């Protein structure tokens, strides 16, 4: 197990290098100029333009800029935003809890609905229930997030008036960010109204963001379950007189979960990228919203740093997922 983890950790270094290079190159490949973006039609005083280019290090050759960037990273410095002049890491850390909160609830939504739906579809294979689950999940999977999010807003917020349109909490609550997790902060402040408001603001974005993972989890659970249900030991369990329920939950599910856990792990990356669209539409003050604005304003350090940090999280989560295989199924040994 240890050797396995060490091997995986060793692989991280080239992955990181690749990520930094891609992030560095991609944002520079898009046409546009971060300094020009700081001025409007009026244009910028040429002297100020040169001064800013120099200050941002953008007047140097690209390889030198990249080397300097790597050097900064090694020293734990992700640079400062060109628009706000705030350290990138600080901005990320301020906004990240919002994204985690959203991603967590999206995942809870996806798992709570996706797992049972997949199991039911497997058990009731080729029945109306199966077709319904598969049909709905295929639709969910194919739906563009931004469009789905707008539909949710129009129906639940504008038409029915059940949920707030966007934001993280109603504006009358001014909750000081202690942990950055709104639900925890409102509870710490002992403000139940604020807590309820924060919860209601989470509903639609979580559904919008959780829909694709939900579909993936449901489909994966179904196919994995079907495979396991065909195994001899399941038939044996049934033949021994165990109830169908017990067979499925105790014997089949545990084995069927292995690929599902992998898929759930992979969804973390998907959730973070999906958060970019979801957060923009729901004005959710998280890193997705921040990154998209960084791209629009060609804020190189924000985009580079943001991508690097998000990639780090995805890598770490995947590593953890690999490590949990052993917990879900002790037969798997990492040798």
């Amino acid at each position: 197990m240890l050797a396995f983890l060490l091997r995986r950790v060793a692989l991280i270094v080239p992955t990181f290098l690749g990520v930094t290079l891609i992030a560095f190159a991609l944002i520079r490949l898009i046409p546009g100029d971060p300094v020009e973006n700081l001025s409007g039609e009026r244009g910028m005083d040429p002297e100020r333009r040169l001064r800013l280019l120099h200050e941002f290090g953008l007047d140097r050759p690209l390889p030198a800029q990249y080397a300097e960037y790597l050097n900064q990273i090694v020293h734990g410095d992700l640079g400062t935003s060109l628009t706000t002049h705030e350290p990138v890491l600080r901005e990320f850390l301020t906004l990240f809890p919002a994204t985690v909160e959203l991603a967590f609830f999206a995942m809870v939504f996806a798992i709570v609905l996706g797992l049972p739906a997949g199991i039911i579809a497997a058990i009731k294979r080729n029945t109306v229930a199966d077709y319904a689950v598969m049909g709905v999940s295929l639709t969910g999977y194919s739906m563009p997030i931004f469009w789905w999010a707008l539909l949710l807003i129009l129906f639940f917020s504008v038409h029915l008036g059940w949920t707030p349109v966007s934001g993280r909490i109603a504006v009358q609550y001014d909750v000081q960010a202690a942990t950055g997790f709104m639900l925890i902060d409102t509870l710490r402040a002992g403000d139940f109204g604020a807590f309820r408001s924060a919860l209601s603001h989470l509903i639609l974005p979580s559904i919008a963001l959780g829909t694709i993972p939900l579909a993936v989890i449901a489909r994966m659970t179904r196919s994995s379950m079907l495979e396991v249900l065909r195994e001899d030991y399941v038939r044996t369990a049934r033949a021994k007189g165990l109830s169908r329920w017990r067979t499925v939950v105790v014997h089949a599910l545990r084995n069927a979960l292995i690929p599902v856990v992998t898929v759930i792990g992979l969804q973390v990356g998907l959730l973070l990228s999906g958060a970019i669209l979801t957060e923009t539409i729901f004005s959710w003050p998280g890193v997705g919203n921040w990154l998209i604005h960084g791209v629009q304003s060609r804020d190189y350090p924000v985009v580079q740093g943001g991508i690097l940090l998000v990639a780090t999280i995805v890598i770490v989560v995947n590593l953890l997922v690999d490590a949990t295989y052993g917990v879900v199924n002790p037969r798997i040994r990492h040798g």
Partner: protein
Amino acid sequence: MNAQLTARAVAAAVAALLLAAAPLAQAKGTLVYCSEGSPEGFQPQFFSTGTTFDAVSVPMFNRLVEFEIGTTNIVPALAESWTVSPDGKVVTFKLRKGVKFHSNANFTPSRDFNADDVVFSWDRMANDSNPFHKGTGGQTYAYFDDMGMKNIVDKVEKLDDYTVRYTLKRPEAPFLADMAMDFASILSKEYFETMAKKGTPNAADIFPIGTGAFEFVSYQKDATIRYKAFDKHFRGKPKVDNLVYAITRDATARYAKLKTGECHVMAFPKPADLDEMKKDPALAVQQKEGLNIGYIAFNVEKKPFDNKLVRQALNMATNKDAILKAVYQGQGQVAKNPIPPILWSYNNAVQDYPYDPAKAKQLLAQAGYPNGFEVDLWYLPVTRPYNPDGKRMAELIQADWEKIGVKAKLVTYEWAEYRKRSKTGEQAAMMFGWSGDNGDPDNFFVPLLGCEAVKGGGNVARWCNKSFEDLVIKAAQTPKQADRAKLYEQAQVIFKEEAPWITLAHSVRFDPVRKEVLGYKMDATAHHYFNNTDLKPAP
């Protein structure tokens, strides 16, 4: 009995919980504005975007003079009055007495606003050796630098506690309008010094202290900015107690929030939503002529646009009414001058070129192009306040020009690239525009059509006409507005005759507000002021 008691206790507890959970009525009091983005920071001197000004200089700061809300008239603010010397080079401001600064957890002002604050605010931007010149995080003074204020103002002196003298390097009539701009907001000298003494000089740029109608409360990045009414504001306490900016980048989400009452006023509606908004009984859509111009500029340094007849011919070949209908969906007006009609000195006597393809063809032949020619037409890659759809406009113009034999190839670049290239003079004919930022006609004529601006790149037609230039320079050096207006009126006649542009349209701006909002007035320079806005009490 016991069970009944328990039931009652539970019911009471649940009721209490629900009451606690009920949203506080958005009482008299809290006005919510759905803004379009986050401010870059909270310092009016560092930045140049309208989003930042709306969040910083508009609610929290004042200038010596300001634009009357809704017009471009200059009215007294922190200065009660001013005099301009006969040669136009010395402007002396008499300051208002008894103006209070805000306070916060780290700072309570010990004195009222005075001349020291005015001198400090200017010196900080202008003087490299001012201890506060080097801004937080290496920020620069965007507007001060980009407007070349160093070449306009020689020195700023305190004559006494309530008198300040600005000495200019040259007579500059638009100077007063410049002083009403956001970058000229007045900071508290005492605040900066106090923060420096406490060892946290940057705090003064991060937690704003001004004299404005609203005080800063808190900012949650990309989510909300909170302000409270400043009860010692020199114009009196604003009508609402609290002001919240709910940052909502997506225009559709802003509209949805306005509909559901999550905000009272929204910024920048999508043109496509306007019809529906106007039909909604809960909303009122205010509109105002934009302080802007959308145009096609001909690069007069390049053939065939060095020939005036060609420029006039293309003016006549372009069907502006059709463009207004198709591109602006009627929400604008055809432009005939380079300045919009809401600006003083607009010359309404100028006759626009009629749409007359036959005459245009004739002019082309006269200019030596009987069979037309081929040309690259650059179009805007982005939506701008003065032009909702550059591509559609370009297609219409292309079709119009085709009729007189001019074949336009449509070209565009990424927005920043577009602006960068336009400065090099690479373009032949290009679509561009301008939103005025200080309500002085000079703010259109000089940066867009002046000879200096050919070098600077803002004059994308690269048109430098001596008679026009003389008039515009003279106007800038003439103190009286009425005299200046006459000079600008003549300049507009020359401009039309020489036709360096096709003036296309002035767009109209819209601010949708909920019906319970009282006293909201749209601003001419596209800012959003809530000083006099109130909310109807809930029925």
